[in-house]
């Protein structure tokens, strides 16, 4: 069964929809030293000079004089065997849009890519007129060698030298430039003079139609596109085009010796560079026409050469400014930040179940204010790519930008074969009607189980690249509630029959979220960072951890309020006694106080910066600064804890924190009942506080928990989160950020709750501030000696 293949659908579609504007006749001629091709005699299929025979030129015969055309045609996705098949491309004439192209049906001729000003329109027209053998000749129409006359083409003798060779100044055979590729692949080129407009969109402009990509060195602000906010976009459409790269610099011939790079797998040990190369002459004779990074029409990568940003770029030295750079580059494809917006239009959906009078589907667009039928003048808003996950060649799964094109079509029969458009049209023609009615009519036409299929094809964004200054570099773009990584994309304003589309099976990427209708009936793709196995700080939060934390805080506040209220009421009823108390005691050593306050301040600052990191949208401070400060504070707390542990162990003070197993419960009960009743009656604390016994049993058990469970938990989870790009394997083993981060957040909530109780209970001393004062100066007033219970 053949499934619809969206590119070819769009090829047809856009041919029908878009007004074709007169082609630019400018072309790019390479520098003289790059044009080494000698003059040639143009031969017809019989090997005769066309100047003599007057027949159509045969690229096979002409170029085959020197180049191995058989090798080329069998190593090319751009042209089938013969390179000059008479049949026009099937998608240009098929009424069945999903008819896949047959590779040997693609008409391509050498001149289309190897002359500076190919006449593609003339070529397409010749194909359409079934003038197969003249197609290559038509392609030379702009060169001045041949002119169209009535029924055919006439060679101009003045364009040939005395030896019968076409003048090199006119033919100008050369390697392909972006201008050549632009003939079929989208708006591209190196022209600085003619401003880019969307009028340049044509039937084959697939990269622009399906992704919104434009590959041009011009500044967007100086282009001719009617774009919202254009004046502020003083950047080029694509930085590679700006920096003089041609398409072929990345999409090079896979056997071009210049680009040969041995894979690390086969490179002999210790050899950095193998200087041996295929001779240039051999390459020129048999240049592979499979190109790096090339994809076949059906989506699979053809070439053995992997092509990605990192084939040329090392992100490390240029991303030193970025905290957790490696973490970012491991989780995000370069294009996600460096192609944040495509300032163009792109197809959104194609509905083959809704055909117009001419049998054309309903097409919706992204990136334009309303409709895009006259895209040359329409107000363009630009397309923000959708975020999908992609498994890259190196095995990393990273989030990457895509344009999603959704299509719906009727299928029927046991095999769920796509139905011919004529069939669908006739079912639609018998009066408009609901999906069910159309289905009924299709059944009446003999189709079993007719139904609508919807599918989403993701088109990966690789062009339209901006340099760093224009890339996404604001942390909050992603680390926020409204994260770019989770921004919903409308797939279509409505779905025929409410059919929820699914991702095509051969998709380049994977959904990192869900497709579902929203309340307005629109089909929406909502990426979820968790689906991609990511926990994005500031954006993601685990609900139960937050709920638990908030509950802990609220109940603590409630408890404190009730307890404090009762204490206050009870104290009012008691007569104010004299502040009888015992002699002051040197309760806390200097080190203990330093340790305590360092911990207190650091933890409070950790909580503050932690809130910013956890909920960026509160906007407490700069996110990146919060992360860095939080990390430093974390290590301050860790160091403080290590020193304190040493101090307590070495001095034996650790004993104070260890509850006596014997009688512990009884004592704890006494302390608890003091807090629950005695304290209101003005009774003394049941356990006298002394330098050797500072903690009551409840404090002992609490601090045991805080210092031995909660603090280490926070430190360990914190260090692991800090080290997520240093030891990704360790973190991964322990559940990754998706587990560690919520755990750390929960710990923080509990710390905050403890802090509240802790501060409240310091007010239960002889005077409300006595304990705090003691922790500051070291000296503490003891309660009045036993018997004198008048102390507050």
């Amino acid at each position: 069964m053949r499934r619809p293949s969206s590119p070819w659908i769009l090829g047809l579609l856009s041919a029908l929809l878009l007004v074709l504007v007169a082609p630019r006749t400018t072309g790019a001629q390479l520098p003289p030293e790059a044009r080494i091709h000698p003059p040639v005699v143009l031969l017809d299929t019989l090997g005769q000079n066309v100047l003599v025979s007057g027949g159509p030129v045969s690229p096979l015969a002409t170029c085959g004089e020197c180049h191995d055309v058989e090798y080329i045609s069998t190593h090319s996705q751009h042209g089938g065997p013969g390179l000059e098949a008479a049949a026009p491309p099937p998608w240009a004439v098929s009424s069945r849009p999903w008819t896949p192209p047959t590779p040997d049906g693609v008409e391509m001729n050498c001149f289309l890519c190897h002359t500076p000003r190919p006449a593609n329109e003339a070529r397409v027209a010749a194909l359409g007129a079934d003038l197969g053998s003249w197609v290559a000749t038509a392609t030379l129409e702009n060169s001045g060698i041949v002119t169209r006359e009535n029924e055919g083409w006439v060679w101009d003798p003045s364009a040939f030298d005395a030896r019968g060779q076409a003048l090199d100044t006119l033919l100008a055979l050369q390697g392909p430039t972006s201008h050549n590729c632009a003939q079929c692949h989208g708006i591209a080129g190196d022209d600085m003079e003619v401003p880019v407009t969307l009028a340049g969109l044509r039937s084959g402009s697939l990269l622009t139609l399906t992704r919104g990509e434009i590959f041009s060195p011009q500044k967007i602000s100086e282009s001719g596109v009617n774009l919202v906010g254009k004046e502020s976009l003083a950047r080029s459409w694509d930085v590679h085009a700006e920096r003089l790269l041609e398409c072929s610099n990345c999409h090079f011939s896979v056997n071009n010796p210049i680009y040969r790079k041995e894979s690390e797998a086969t490179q002999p040990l210790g050899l950095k560079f193998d200087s041996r190369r295929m001779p240039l002459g051999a390459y020129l004779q048999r240049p592979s026409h499979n190109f790096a990074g090339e994809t076949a029409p059906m989506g699979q990568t053809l070439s053995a050469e992997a092509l990605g940003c990192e084939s040329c770029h090392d992100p490390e030295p240029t991303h030193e400014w970025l905290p957790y750079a490696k973490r970012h580059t491991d989780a995000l494809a370069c294009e996600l930040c460096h192609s944040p917006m495509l300032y163009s239009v792109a197809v959104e959906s194609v509905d083959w179940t809704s055909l117009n009078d001419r049998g054309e589907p309903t097409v919706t667009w992204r990136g334009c204010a309303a409709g895009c039928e006259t895209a040359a003048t329409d107000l363009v808003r630009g397309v923000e790519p959708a975020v999908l996950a992609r498994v890259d060649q190196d095995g990393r799964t990273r989030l990457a930008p895509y344009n999603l094109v959704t299509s719906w079509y009727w299928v029927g029969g046991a095999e769920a074969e796509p139905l011919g458009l004529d069939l669908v049209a006739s079912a639609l023609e018998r009066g408009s009607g609901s999906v069910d009615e159309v289905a009924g009519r299709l059944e009446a036409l003999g189709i079993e189980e007719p139904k609508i299929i919807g599918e989403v094809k993701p088109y990966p964004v690789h062009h339209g690249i901006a340099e760093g200054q224009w890339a996404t570099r604001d942390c909050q773009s992603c680390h926020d509630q409204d994260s770019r990584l989770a921004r919903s994309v409308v797939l279509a304003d409505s779905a025929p029959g409410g059919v929820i589309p699914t991702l095509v099976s051969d998709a380049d990427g994977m959904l990192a979220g869900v497709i579902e209708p929203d309340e307005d009936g629109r089909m929406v793709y909502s990426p979820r960072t968790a689906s991609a196995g990511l926990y994005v700080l500031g954006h993601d939060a685990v609900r139960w951890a937050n709920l638990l934390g908030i509950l802990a805080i609220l109940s603590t506040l409630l408890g404190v309020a009730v307890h404090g209220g009762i204490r206050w009421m009870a104290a009012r009823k008691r007569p104010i006694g004299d502040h009888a108390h015992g002699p002051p005691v040197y309760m806390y050593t200097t080190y203990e106080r330093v340790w305590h306050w360092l911990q207190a301040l650091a933890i409070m600052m950790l909580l503050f910066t932690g809130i910013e990191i956890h909920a960026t949208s509160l906007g407490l401070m700069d996110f990146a600064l919060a992360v860095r400060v939080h990390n430093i504070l974390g290590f301050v707390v860790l160091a403080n804890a290590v020193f304190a542990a040493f101090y307590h162990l070495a001095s034996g003070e650790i004993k104070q924190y260890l509850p006596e197993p014997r009688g512990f419960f009884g004592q704890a009960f006494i302390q608890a009942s003091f807090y629950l009743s005695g304290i209101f009656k003005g009774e003394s604390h049941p356990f006298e506080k002394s330098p050797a016994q500072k903690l009551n049993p409840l404090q002992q058990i609490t601090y045991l928990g805080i210092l031995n469970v909660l603090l280490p938990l926070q430190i360990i989870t914190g260090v692991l989160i800090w080290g997520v790009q240093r030891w990704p394997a360790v973190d991964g083993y322990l559940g990754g950020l998706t587990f560690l981060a919520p755990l750390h957040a929960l710990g923080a909530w509990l710390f905050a709750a403890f802090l509240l109780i802790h501060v409240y209970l310091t007010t239960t001393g002889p005077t409300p501030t006595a304990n705090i004062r003691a922790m500051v100066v070291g000296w503490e007033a003891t309660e009045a000696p036993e018997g004198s219970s008048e102390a507050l």
Partner: protein
Amino acid sequence: MRELNPETRTGTIMSDKIHPLSGEETPVGRTPGWKALALIVGVAIFLPMYALLSGGEEVLDDPWAFVGERAPVTDHSGLMPGPYQTGEDVTRACLDCHEGEGHELLQTSHWRWEGEPVQLPGRPEPVSMGKKNVINNFCISVQSNWSGCTSCHVGYGWVDDDFDFGNTEKVDCLVCHDQSGQYAKGSGGYPGPEVDLAAAAQSVATPTRDNCGGCHFRGGGGDAVKHGDLDESLSNPTARVDVHMGTHGLICVDCHTTEDHAMKGRALSVSVDNKNEVQCTDCHLAEPHEDTRLNSHVSAVACESCHIPQVAIREATKTHWDWSAAGQDLPEDAHEYLKKKGRFEYEAGLVPEYFWFNGRGDRYLLGDTIDPSIATELNPPLGDIRDPEAKIWPFKVHRATQIYDTRYKTLMVPQTVGEGAYWDVFDWDQALRMGAQASGLPYSGSYDFANTVMYWPLSHMVQPAENALQCRDCHTPQGRLDWQALGYPGDPGGWGSRDLRSISNGTVADGAPASGQDRGGVR
């Protein structure tokens, strides 16, 4: 810090440590107080933060740090009551308080119109030159035309060769310091009759762009004529015209700073050495780009080459002047033809031409012989690809056809201003005789016209990065630069930059030997 042993802390409390808490704020003597505590804790937290957060920061490009503060302005309205009959009256009043300034000014090139002696290539001894005695290819020469030309001299009464350059009372303070807006100089540099001198004297302050522009925007006889990068659009420039003056509101003297009234800055037309230049790097880093590829340009390309992609942005500037066509009764148009001056060509949005330039120039001097069959370069910039100090610079090139003596093969000084002079009677022969008398050049009686060229290095109308040149403006076959004419074997984008080591051996790079003959850098 005092440490207690556990024993002493448990039971008995030593009396000297007992602290009566009641009503006392002061903590116990020998244990650290809250201030010390706060200090320790604060240091423990903020020291690592300071150390880690501030580390690794690069040197920031902060050009403002190098822009001096403007001198405070004293209100002179009460100090200069007037009335003043002449400009010299005002100057005397100025010198009453500013005693030394008059003598300072006498040393400046604004006054002397002559620089320090400079050794020119191929000449036996250093030559003093300046506006006073050089020839250009606009109005040709000051000599014999003093009264017309010296309306831009910072003095009063330079009408002939006998002007007293030692008289401080002849200094025109107002032309630079007037802010009343109505001060204007006429013939001989005297203020015009309509000028209210008291109002001008009371308004004095730091020179603004209009003060400088009064002469420098109008060089060559009218707005935008001479420089191309200096015209009246810089009076109130928009951001599009100049980033310094438009976007950031700088005035001329922010960069052209003075010391004892001596201005910083050089103009190749009259100053051919490279002392006292204003440089971009006075304020900007030498390698200011984030992009290392861009920074790799700065050793061979002047900042101006990319950041001044075009000049004459708002007003067309004169690019050709054909004196030989003067004197005819043709329809007049200030931008095309004037009977007095001949035929012109102007260009707006002028794209510069690019040459190697090390800051110094050669100079055509009065009396030098020319080859009339080729264009004579009056002020050729020095430097070529082999010169490590030379960079590729943008120039406005002014091409002219001007009068010369066919027998002596010297460019001549015609008197144009005055009775019987060319602009009076349109008789070249008479104008040359009068001019020869003033300049001392011999005149054979036969004359013709020859082509001359002047080079104007560009340094204003600077554009920010977003408007600067891009790769493609130079590094394509259609680009602005003719690499081979500049001495490269080909586009250094592919061929690599000039290799000064191999240049010293006579070759430029892996290619052709450097010719160094042609100046050309432009297609």
